[in-house]
Protein backbone atom coordinates (compact mmCIF):
# COMPACT_ATOMS: atom_id res chain seq x y z
CA UNK A 1 0.00 0.00 0.00
CA UNK A 2 1.24 3.48 -0.82
CA UNK A 3 1.77 6.31 1.63
CA UNK A 4 -1.15 8.12 0.03
CA UNK A 5 -3.45 5.17 0.70
CA UNK A 6 -2.29 4.96 4.32
CA UNK A 7 -3.01 8.67 4.62
CA UNK A 8 -6.54 8.11 3.34
CA UNK A 9 -7.13 5.31 5.84
CA UNK A 10 -5.74 7.34 8.74
CA UNK A 11 -7.86 10.33 7.73
CA UNK A 12 -10.95 8.10 7.66
CA UNK A 13 -10.15 6.78 11.14
CA UNK A 14 -9.54 10.30 12.45
CA UNK A 15 -12.73 11.74 10.96
CA UNK A 16 -14.85 8.83 12.20
CA UNK A 17 -13.21 8.69 15.64
CA UNK A 18 -13.66 12.39 16.29
CA UNK A 19 -17.21 12.30 14.91
CA UNK A 20 -18.23 9.49 17.29
CA UNK A 21 -16.41 10.79 20.38
CA UNK A 22 -17.81 14.28 19.94
CA UNK A 23 -21.32 12.94 19.36
CA UNK A 24 -21.39 10.54 22.33
CA UNK A 25 -22.68 13.04 24.93
CA UNK A 26 -25.37 14.39 22.60
CA UNK A 27 -26.39 10.90 21.49
CA UNK A 28 -26.58 9.73 25.10
CA UNK A 29 -28.62 12.77 26.12
CA UNK A 30 -31.07 12.22 23.26
CA UNK A 31 -31.26 8.48 23.97
CA UNK A 32 -31.98 9.20 27.62
CA UNK A 33 -34.72 11.71 26.75
CA UNK A 34 -36.33 9.28 24.32
CA UNK A 35 -36.04 6.30 26.69
CA UNK A 36 -37.04 7.95 29.96
CA UNK A 37 -38.47 11.37 29.15
CA UNK A 38 -42.14 12.27 29.01
CA UNK A 39 -42.68 15.57 27.30
CA UNK A 40 -44.78 17.06 24.51
CA UNK A 41 -43.06 16.80 21.16
CA UNK A 42 -41.24 13.58 22.00
CA UNK A 43 -42.50 11.97 18.80
CA UNK A 44 -41.26 14.94 16.77
CA UNK A 45 -37.84 14.80 18.43
CA UNK A 46 -37.70 11.07 17.70
CA UNK A 47 -38.50 11.74 14.05
CA UNK A 48 -35.96 14.57 13.78
CA UNK A 49 -33.21 12.39 15.24
CA UNK A 50 -33.99 9.68 12.71
CA UNK A 51 -34.28 12.06 9.77
CA UNK A 52 -30.68 11.65 8.49
CA UNK A 53 -31.35 7.91 8.27
CA UNK A 54 -34.01 8.33 5.59
CA UNK A 55 -33.21 11.70 4.00
CA UNK A 56 -31.15 11.56 0.78
CA UNK A 57 -27.58 12.12 2.06
CA UNK A 58 -27.10 14.82 -0.55
CA UNK A 59 -29.94 16.77 1.08
CA UNK A 60 -28.32 16.40 4.50
CA UNK A 61 -25.05 17.67 3.00
CA UNK A 62 -26.82 20.59 1.39
CA UNK A 63 -28.55 21.50 4.66
CA UNK A 64 -25.16 21.41 6.41
CA UNK A 65 -23.80 23.67 3.69
CA UNK A 66 -26.60 26.17 4.28
CA UNK A 67 -26.17 26.10 8.05
CA UNK A 68 -22.40 25.76 8.40
CA UNK A 69 -21.18 27.32 5.17
CA UNK A 70 -19.23 30.56 5.43
CA UNK A 71 -22.43 32.57 4.97
CA UNK A 72 -24.64 30.22 6.99
CA UNK A 73 -25.83 31.24 10.47
CA UNK A 74 -23.87 28.51 12.29
CA UNK A 75 -20.85 28.94 10.02
CA UNK A 76 -20.68 32.67 10.63
CA UNK A 77 -21.09 32.16 14.36
CA UNK A 78 -18.23 29.66 14.44
CA UNK A 79 -16.00 32.02 12.45
CA UNK A 80 -16.85 35.10 14.53
CA UNK A 81 -16.45 33.46 17.92
CA UNK A 82 -13.84 30.80 17.40
CA UNK A 83 -12.20 31.72 14.12
CA UNK A 84 -13.12 28.27 12.87
CA UNK A 85 -14.47 27.31 9.48
CA UNK A 86 -15.67 23.82 8.70
CA UNK A 87 -15.76 24.36 4.94
CA UNK A 88 -13.43 22.02 3.00
CA UNK A 89 -11.88 20.91 6.31
CA UNK A 90 -11.69 17.47 7.89
CA UNK A 91 -13.69 18.87 10.82
CA UNK A 92 -16.52 19.45 8.36
CA UNK A 93 -16.24 15.85 7.22
CA UNK A 94 -16.43 14.82 10.88
CA UNK A 95 -19.57 16.92 11.33
CA UNK A 96 -21.21 15.30 8.30
CA UNK A 97 -20.25 11.85 9.59
CA UNK A 98 -21.57 12.72 13.06
CA UNK A 99 -24.96 13.82 11.72
CA UNK A 100 -25.28 10.65 9.67
CA UNK A 101 -24.17 8.42 12.57
CA UNK A 102 -26.38 10.07 15.19
CA UNK A 103 -29.62 8.14 14.48
CA UNK A 104 -27.91 4.75 14.73
CA UNK A 105 -26.08 5.73 17.92
CA UNK A 106 -29.22 7.09 19.56
CA UNK A 107 -31.17 3.94 18.62
CA UNK A 108 -28.64 1.53 20.11
CA UNK A 109 -28.17 3.64 23.24
CA UNK A 110 -31.89 4.06 23.73
CA UNK A 111 -32.40 0.29 23.58
CA UNK A 112 -29.68 -0.26 26.16
CA UNK A 113 -31.17 2.31 28.53
CA UNK A 114 -34.64 0.81 28.10
CA UNK A 115 -33.22 -2.64 28.86
CA UNK A 116 -32.11 -1.57 32.34
CA UNK A 117 -34.55 -3.01 34.90
CA UNK A 118 -35.99 0.02 36.66
CA UNK A 119 -36.93 -2.12 39.65
CA UNK A 120 -33.19 -2.42 40.36
CA UNK A 121 -33.07 1.36 40.53
CA UNK A 122 -35.93 1.32 43.04
CA UNK A 123 -34.09 -1.28 45.11
CA UNK A 124 -31.00 0.94 45.14
CA UNK A 125 -33.10 3.91 46.29
CA UNK A 126 -34.40 1.96 49.29
CA UNK A 127 -30.80 1.04 50.14
CA UNK A 128 -29.96 4.72 50.55
CA UNK A 129 -28.77 5.78 47.10
CA UNK A 130 -29.62 9.25 45.77
CA UNK A 131 -30.92 9.49 42.18
CA UNK A 132 -27.47 10.59 40.99
CA UNK A 133 -25.81 7.64 42.69
CA UNK A 134 -28.39 5.25 41.28
CA UNK A 135 -27.54 6.56 37.83
CA UNK A 136 -23.78 6.18 38.32
CA UNK A 137 -23.76 2.86 40.20
CA UNK A 138 -26.69 0.99 38.62
CA UNK A 139 -28.09 2.48 35.42
CA UNK A 140 -24.87 3.52 33.71
CA UNK A 141 -22.88 0.30 34.35
CA UNK A 142 -25.80 -1.85 33.20
CA UNK A 143 -26.25 0.23 30.05
CA UNK A 144 -22.53 0.57 29.24
CA UNK A 145 -22.13 -2.41 26.86
CA UNK A 146 -25.07 -1.09 24.82
CA UNK A 147 -23.68 2.45 24.86
CA UNK A 148 -20.36 1.15 23.52
CA UNK A 149 -22.23 -0.89 20.91
CA UNK A 150 -23.92 2.32 19.79
CA UNK A 151 -20.57 4.10 19.56
CA UNK A 152 -19.00 1.31 17.50
CA UNK A 153 -22.02 1.22 15.21
CA UNK A 154 -21.76 4.98 14.74
CA UNK A 155 -18.08 4.57 13.94
CA UNK A 156 -18.89 2.00 11.26
CA UNK A 157 -21.49 4.31 9.75
CA UNK A 158 -19.01 7.20 9.78
CA UNK A 159 -16.37 5.15 7.96
CA UNK A 160 -18.87 4.60 5.14
CA UNK A 161 -20.18 8.15 4.97
CA UNK A 162 -20.15 9.54 1.42
CA UNK A 163 -23.06 11.65 0.16
CA UNK A 164 -23.37 14.28 2.85
CA UNK A 165 -19.59 14.61 3.09
CA UNK A 166 -18.89 15.19 -0.60
CA UNK A 167 -21.79 17.67 -0.80
CA UNK A 168 -20.73 19.60 2.29
CA UNK A 169 -16.93 19.62 2.20
CA UNK A 170 -16.08 18.32 -1.29
CA UNK A 171 -13.34 15.77 -2.07
CA UNK A 172 -10.02 17.34 -1.06
CA UNK A 173 -6.92 15.12 -0.79
CA UNK A 174 -5.50 14.98 2.72
CA UNK A 175 -8.39 16.99 4.15
CA UNK A 176 -11.77 15.49 3.29
CA UNK A 177 -10.86 12.56 1.01
CA UNK A 178 -11.89 9.62 3.20
CA UNK A 179 -11.99 6.00 1.98
CA UNK A 180 -15.37 6.18 0.18
CA UNK A 181 -14.49 9.49 -1.47
CA UNK A 182 -11.10 8.17 -2.53
CA UNK A 183 -12.71 5.06 -4.07
CA UNK A 184 -15.20 7.26 -5.91
CA UNK A 185 -12.40 9.51 -7.14
CA UNK A 186 -10.25 6.58 -8.26
CA UNK A 187 -13.18 5.08 -10.17
CA UNK A 188 -13.45 8.24 -12.29
CA UNK A 189 -10.04 7.49 -13.83
CA UNK A 190 -9.41 4.22 -15.76
CA UNK A 191 -6.54 1.98 -14.61
CA UNK A 192 -7.00 2.47 -10.87
CA UNK A 193 -8.45 -0.98 -10.17
CA UNK A 194 -5.76 -2.04 -7.69
CA UNK A 195 -6.19 1.11 -5.58
CA UNK A 196 -9.96 0.69 -5.62
CA UNK A 197 -9.68 -2.99 -4.67
CA UNK A 198 -7.30 -2.33 -1.81
CA UNK A 199 -9.38 0.51 -0.35
CA UNK A 200 -12.59 -1.49 -0.82
CA UNK A 201 -11.12 -4.44 1.08
CA UNK A 202 -10.07 -2.11 3.90
CA UNK A 203 -13.59 -0.63 3.97
CA UNK A 204 -15.18 -4.08 4.15
CA UNK A 205 -12.83 -5.22 6.93
CA UNK A 206 -13.32 -2.06 9.03
CA UNK A 207 -17.10 -2.18 8.65
CA UNK A 208 -17.35 -5.89 9.34
CA UNK A 209 -15.10 -5.64 12.39
CA UNK A 210 -17.11 -2.74 13.79
CA UNK A 211 -20.43 -4.51 13.22
CA UNK A 212 -19.20 -7.68 14.92
CA UNK A 213 -17.79 -5.73 17.85
CA UNK A 214 -21.04 -3.82 18.14
CA UNK A 215 -23.16 -6.97 18.13
CA UNK A 216 -20.94 -8.69 20.71
CA UNK A 217 -21.22 -5.65 22.99
CA UNK A 218 -24.99 -5.47 22.52
CA UNK A 219 -25.34 -9.12 23.53
CA UNK A 220 -23.62 -8.32 26.80
CA UNK A 221 -25.92 -5.37 27.43
CA UNK A 222 -28.65 -5.87 30.02
CA UNK A 223 -27.05 -9.17 30.99
CA UNK A 224 -29.14 -11.27 28.67
CA UNK A 225 -31.93 -8.79 28.03
CA UNK A 226 -30.09 -6.52 25.61
CA UNK A 227 -31.24 -5.60 22.17
CA UNK A 228 -29.59 -6.64 18.96
CA UNK A 229 -27.82 -4.46 16.48
CA UNK A 230 -27.79 -7.02 13.69
Amino acid sequence: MTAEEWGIILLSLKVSGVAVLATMPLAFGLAWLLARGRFPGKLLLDALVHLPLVLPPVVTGWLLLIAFGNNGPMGRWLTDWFGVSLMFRWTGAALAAAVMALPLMVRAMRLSIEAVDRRLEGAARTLGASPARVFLSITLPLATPGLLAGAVLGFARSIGEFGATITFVSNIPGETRTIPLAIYGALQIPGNETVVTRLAIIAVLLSLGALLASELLARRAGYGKGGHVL
Partner: protein
Amino acid sequence: MSFEIAVERQLGDAHVALTLSSAAGLTALFGPSGAGKSSVLNMVAGLLRPDRGRIIVAGETLFDSAARIDLLPDRRRAGYVFQDGRLFPHRRVRDNLLYGWRLAAPDHRWMTLDEAVDFLGIAHLLARWPRTLSGGEAQRVAIGRALLSGPRFLLMDEPLASLDMARRDDIMQVIERVRDELALPILYVSHDRAEVDRLASTIVTLAPDSIG
Protein backbone atom coordinates in the same frame (compact mmCIF):
# COMPACT_ATOMS: atom_id res chain seq x y z
CA MET B 1 -46.85 1.05 67.63
CA SER B 2 -44.68 -0.36 64.86
CA PHE B 3 -46.70 0.50 61.79
CA GLU B 4 -49.43 3.11 61.64
CA ILE B 5 -50.61 3.28 58.06
CA ALA B 6 -53.62 4.94 56.47
CA VAL B 7 -53.16 5.32 52.73
CA GLU B 8 -55.19 5.56 49.55
CA ARG B 9 -54.01 5.40 46.01
CA GLN B 10 -55.79 5.08 42.69
CA LEU B 11 -53.85 2.87 40.23
CA GLY B 12 -55.69 2.77 36.92
CA ASP B 13 -59.01 1.12 37.71
CA ALA B 14 -57.85 -0.29 41.02
CA HIS B 15 -58.30 1.58 44.25
CA VAL B 16 -55.83 0.60 46.93
CA ALA B 17 -56.79 1.62 50.42
CA LEU B 18 -55.55 0.38 53.74
CA THR B 19 -55.69 1.36 57.38
CA LEU B 20 -53.67 -0.56 59.90
CA SER B 21 -51.86 -0.11 63.15
CA SER B 22 -49.80 -2.90 64.61
CA ALA B 23 -47.65 -3.63 67.62
CA ALA B 24 -44.10 -4.97 67.53
CA GLY B 25 -43.19 -8.10 65.60
CA LEU B 26 -44.18 -9.20 62.15
CA THR B 27 -47.25 -7.64 60.59
CA ALA B 28 -48.59 -9.64 57.66
CA LEU B 29 -50.56 -8.11 54.82
CA PHE B 30 -52.58 -11.01 53.58
CA GLY B 31 -54.74 -11.25 50.48
CA PRO B 32 -55.00 -12.53 46.91
CA SER B 33 -52.72 -11.21 44.21
CA GLY B 34 -54.01 -8.02 42.69
CA ALA B 35 -55.24 -6.66 46.00
CA GLY B 36 -52.53 -4.02 46.08
CA LYS B 37 -50.33 -5.54 48.78
CA SER B 38 -47.09 -4.76 46.95
CA SER B 39 -48.33 -1.23 46.23
CA VAL B 40 -48.72 -0.70 49.98
CA LEU B 41 -45.12 -1.82 50.55
CA ASN B 42 -43.94 0.51 47.78
CA MET B 43 -45.81 3.37 49.44
CA VAL B 44 -44.12 2.63 52.77
CA ALA B 45 -40.72 2.43 51.03
CA GLY B 46 -41.34 5.72 49.21
CA LEU B 47 -41.29 4.21 45.72
CA LEU B 48 -45.00 4.97 45.19
CA ARG B 49 -46.68 8.12 46.43
CA PRO B 50 -50.09 7.71 48.08
CA ASP B 51 -52.83 10.04 46.88
CA ARG B 52 -53.48 10.83 50.52
CA GLY B 53 -52.82 9.42 53.93
CA ARG B 54 -50.19 8.94 56.57
CA ILE B 55 -47.38 6.46 57.17
CA ILE B 56 -45.68 6.29 60.57
CA VAL B 57 -43.16 3.58 61.36
CA ALA B 58 -41.75 3.11 64.88
CA GLY B 59 -42.66 6.67 65.79
CA GLU B 60 -41.21 8.40 62.74
CA THR B 61 -43.51 9.98 60.18
CA LEU B 62 -42.43 8.95 56.68
CA PHE B 63 -45.39 10.38 54.83
CA ASP B 64 -48.24 12.68 55.78
CA SER B 65 -50.19 14.32 52.97
CA ALA B 66 -51.91 16.75 55.37
CA ALA B 67 -48.59 17.90 56.87
CA ARG B 68 -46.83 17.73 53.48
CA ILE B 69 -44.25 15.28 54.75
CA ASP B 70 -42.81 12.90 52.15
CA LEU B 71 -39.38 11.50 52.97
CA LEU B 72 -37.31 10.38 50.00
CA PRO B 73 -36.83 6.60 49.67
CA ASP B 74 -33.14 6.92 50.54
CA ARG B 75 -34.05 8.71 53.80
CA ARG B 76 -36.64 6.24 55.06
CA ARG B 77 -34.22 3.54 56.21
CA ALA B 78 -36.43 0.74 54.95
CA GLY B 79 -34.89 -2.69 54.43
CA TYR B 80 -36.84 -3.92 51.43
CA VAL B 81 -36.66 -7.62 50.51
CA PHE B 82 -38.26 -8.25 47.13
CA GLN B 83 -39.92 -11.42 45.87
CA ASP B 84 -37.27 -11.92 43.16
CA GLY B 85 -34.31 -10.86 45.31
CA ARG B 86 -33.57 -8.05 42.90
CA LEU B 87 -29.82 -8.33 43.37
CA PHE B 88 -27.62 -6.10 41.22
CA PRO B 89 -26.45 -8.38 38.38
CA HIS B 90 -23.21 -6.47 37.75
CA ARG B 91 -21.94 -6.77 41.32
CA ARG B 92 -20.72 -9.83 43.14
CA VAL B 93 -22.54 -11.01 46.26
CA ARG B 94 -20.08 -9.21 48.52
CA ASP B 95 -20.65 -5.87 46.76
CA ASN B 96 -24.40 -6.43 46.73
CA LEU B 97 -24.29 -6.95 50.49
CA LEU B 98 -22.20 -3.84 51.05
CA TYR B 99 -24.15 -1.56 48.66
CA GLY B 100 -26.44 -0.12 51.33
CA TRP B 101 -23.91 -0.51 54.13
CA ARG B 102 -21.47 1.83 52.37
CA LEU B 103 -24.24 4.41 51.86
CA ALA B 104 -25.50 4.27 55.45
CA ALA B 105 -24.35 6.82 58.02
CA PRO B 106 -21.90 5.04 60.36
CA ASP B 107 -24.15 5.51 63.39
CA HIS B 108 -27.08 4.00 61.46
CA ARG B 109 -25.27 0.74 60.84
CA TRP B 110 -25.99 -1.91 63.41
CA MET B 111 -24.52 -4.97 61.73
CA THR B 112 -21.16 -5.72 60.16
CA LEU B 113 -20.58 -7.73 57.01
CA ASP B 114 -19.13 -10.59 59.09
CA GLU B 115 -22.14 -10.64 61.41
CA ALA B 116 -24.58 -10.67 58.52
CA VAL B 117 -22.63 -13.40 56.73
CA ASP B 118 -22.61 -15.56 59.89
CA PHE B 119 -26.26 -14.86 60.65
CA LEU B 120 -27.34 -15.96 57.17
CA GLY B 121 -24.70 -18.63 56.52
CA ILE B 122 -23.58 -17.17 53.21
CA ALA B 123 -19.80 -17.00 53.64
CA HIS B 124 -19.26 -19.38 50.71
CA LEU B 125 -21.25 -17.13 48.35
CA LEU B 126 -19.35 -13.85 48.75
CA ALA B 127 -17.31 -14.09 45.54
CA ARG B 128 -20.18 -15.37 43.38
CA TRP B 129 -22.19 -13.47 40.77
CA PRO B 130 -25.94 -13.17 41.48
CA ARG B 131 -26.91 -15.06 38.30
CA THR B 132 -25.13 -18.19 39.64
CA LEU B 133 -27.18 -18.28 42.87
CA SER B 134 -30.16 -20.55 43.51
CA GLY B 135 -33.44 -18.92 44.53
CA GLY B 136 -32.86 -19.63 48.22
CA GLU B 137 -29.28 -18.36 48.13
CA ALA B 138 -30.34 -15.18 46.35
CA GLN B 139 -33.03 -14.56 48.95
CA ARG B 140 -30.54 -14.93 51.81
CA VAL B 141 -28.25 -12.42 50.13
CA ALA B 142 -31.18 -10.08 49.56
CA ILE B 143 -32.08 -10.26 53.26
CA GLY B 144 -28.44 -9.63 54.16
CA ARG B 145 -28.24 -6.64 51.84
CA ALA B 146 -31.34 -5.16 53.46
CA LEU B 147 -30.09 -5.77 57.02
CA LEU B 148 -26.67 -4.26 56.29
CA SER B 149 -28.17 -0.98 55.04
CA GLY B 150 -28.94 -0.17 58.68
CA PRO B 151 -32.74 -0.22 58.40
CA ARG B 152 -35.20 0.78 61.13
CA PHE B 153 -37.73 -1.72 59.77
CA LEU B 154 -38.10 -4.38 57.09
CA LEU B 155 -40.50 -4.71 54.18
CA MET B 156 -40.83 -8.20 52.73
CA ASP B 157 -42.74 -8.81 49.52
CA GLU B 158 -43.55 -12.54 49.15
CA PRO B 159 -39.94 -13.52 49.90
CA LEU B 160 -40.84 -17.22 49.69
CA ALA B 161 -42.98 -17.18 46.57
CA SER B 162 -40.29 -18.21 44.10
CA LEU B 163 -38.81 -20.99 46.28
CA ASP B 164 -39.48 -24.72 46.44
CA MET B 165 -40.85 -26.29 49.65
CA ALA B 166 -37.48 -27.25 51.17
CA ARG B 167 -36.06 -23.77 50.65
CA ARG B 168 -39.22 -22.10 51.93
CA ASP B 169 -38.82 -23.65 55.37
CA ASP B 170 -35.18 -22.67 55.34
CA ILE B 171 -35.86 -18.99 54.62
CA MET B 172 -38.84 -18.98 56.99
CA GLN B 173 -36.47 -19.90 59.82
CA VAL B 174 -34.21 -17.01 58.80
CA ILE B 175 -37.18 -14.63 58.91
CA GLU B 176 -38.21 -15.95 62.35
CA ARG B 177 -34.72 -15.27 63.61
CA VAL B 178 -34.77 -11.75 62.15
CA ARG B 179 -38.11 -11.20 63.87
CA ASP B 180 -37.06 -12.63 67.27
CA GLU B 181 -33.34 -12.00 67.58
CA LEU B 182 -33.06 -8.64 65.82
CA ALA B 183 -36.50 -7.40 66.96
CA LEU B 184 -37.06 -5.32 63.84
CA PRO B 185 -40.60 -4.33 62.91
CA ILE B 186 -41.46 -6.25 59.74
CA LEU B 187 -44.25 -5.57 57.27
CA TYR B 188 -44.70 -8.81 55.36
CA VAL B 189 -46.79 -9.43 52.26
CA SER B 190 -48.09 -12.88 51.35
CA HIS B 191 -51.00 -14.67 49.73
CA ASP B 192 -50.23 -17.91 51.62
CA ARG B 193 -52.36 -18.42 54.72
CA ALA B 194 -50.14 -21.07 56.34
CA GLU B 195 -47.06 -18.91 55.93
CA VAL B 196 -48.80 -15.92 57.46
CA ASP B 197 -50.19 -17.96 60.37
CA ARG B 198 -46.74 -19.24 61.22
CA LEU B 199 -44.85 -15.95 61.00
CA ALA B 200 -47.20 -13.10 61.86
CA SER B 201 -48.04 -11.49 65.14
CA THR B 202 -50.62 -9.25 63.43
CA ILE B 203 -52.57 -10.21 60.31
CA VAL B 204 -54.28 -7.64 58.11
CA THR B 205 -56.40 -8.86 55.22
CA LEU B 206 -56.47 -6.83 52.04
CA ALA B 207 -59.16 -7.64 49.48
CA PRO B 208 -59.20 -6.49 45.84
CA ASP B 209 -60.64 -2.99 45.65
CA SER B 210 -61.01 -3.03 49.40
CA ILE B 211 -61.92 0.19 51.08
CA GLY B 212 -59.71 0.08 54.13
